[in-house]
């Protein structure tokens, strides 16, 4: 797997140039578009993971765009520090031009994945409920964590069994999920909690809840199960050489889901 070479001889850097959307050929399984805001910095990691699972590179879209490439069936908001995380993480990005298109895409039933800063943006854009506060320790946390799959059988979790435990990287300063009790109850009741922080044995303990999130929540789904936001970075575990492939099922699930039933 190789990223396309840019004119500097190095793999192309999204954000630096606006890559043309992938052609919408019939056998293609996944037409993903990653949105690049000023300050997004994990778009490469995400592109590599998507390409590994789907066999083709995603499109990269600059925040100033107002439309998604034709045939897009997955929009990804990647990690980073959009607008420097100034004011509140994700707040300024949530108001950028491309987000109107993303919101409409989701309203039409499109699939949206927001990781880390992307999750923060989805909450700020009110596409997902709740908010992400400073980590309880008030420190940036860069370390491995374990996640338990709370809702299998969604477009994002099809490859996992209910209750499966996998490892992920986390790297954030504001990942402390908050919502009022009624919202949390509703999320739980409707089965919209996707992942919870847990220990290696799958117990959702207080010690495993490093950032202090309400009810150990690491990721949540929209009611139609097509929008997922989560803090940890499954895209950083898709290569045995780089610590394992625990995150790959998420991307493979998306390929399965979108190949079976295009949006």
């Amino acid at each position, binding site marked *: 797997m190789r990223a396309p070479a840019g004119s500097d001889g190095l793999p192309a850097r999204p954000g630096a140039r606006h890559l043309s959307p992938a052609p919408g050929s019939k056998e293609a399984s996944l037409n993903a578009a990653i949105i690049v805001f000023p300050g997004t910095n994990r778009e490469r990691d995400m592109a590599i993971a998507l390409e590994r699972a789907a066999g083709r590179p995603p499109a990269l879209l600059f925040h100033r765009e107002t439309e998604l490439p034709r045939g897009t069936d997955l929009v990804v908001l990647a990690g980073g520090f959009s607008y420097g995380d100034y004011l509140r993480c994700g707040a300024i990005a949530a108001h950028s031009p491309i987000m109107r298109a993303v919101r409409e895409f989701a309203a039409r039933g499109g699939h949206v994945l927001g990781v880390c800063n992307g999750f923060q943006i989805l909450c700020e854009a009110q596409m997902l*409920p709740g908010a992400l506060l*400073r980590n309880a320790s008030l420190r940036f946390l860069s370390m491995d964590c374990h996640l338990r799959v709370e809702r299998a059988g969604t477009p994002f979790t099809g490859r996992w069994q209910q209750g499966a435990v996998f490892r992920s990287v986390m790297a954030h300063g504001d990942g402390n999920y908050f919502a009022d009790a009624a919202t949390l109850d509703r999320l739980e009741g409707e089965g919209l909690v996707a992942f919870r922080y847990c220990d290696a044995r799958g117990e959702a303990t207080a010690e495993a809840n490093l950032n202090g999130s309400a009810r150990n929540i690491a990721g949540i789904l929209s009611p139609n199960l097509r929008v997922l936001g989560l803090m940890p970075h499954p895209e950083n575990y898709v290569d045995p050489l780089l610590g394992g492939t625990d995150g790959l099922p998420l991307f493979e699930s998306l390929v399965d889901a979108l190949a079976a039933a295009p949006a």
Partner: protein
Amino acid sequence: MIRARVTVMPKAGVLDPQGKAIGHALANLGFAGVGEVRAGKVIELELAESDPAKAKAQAEEMARRLLANLVIESYRVEIA
């Protein structure tokens, strides 16, 4: 030209780890009798406006749309 000040505070009931940490740190420094501590943000704006009421309305709209996240925060606008 009018100066507006938007103060954004965590809502009651929302965890405020920063405020808590400041409270601890003050106690460690030997300050006694410090009760609840809440930490928020303040944004000072210069508005090209001469009518204080209009300036206030404008700052309030800015607070609602961007400066505060009403899920977790409340805001207050003052005009200097």
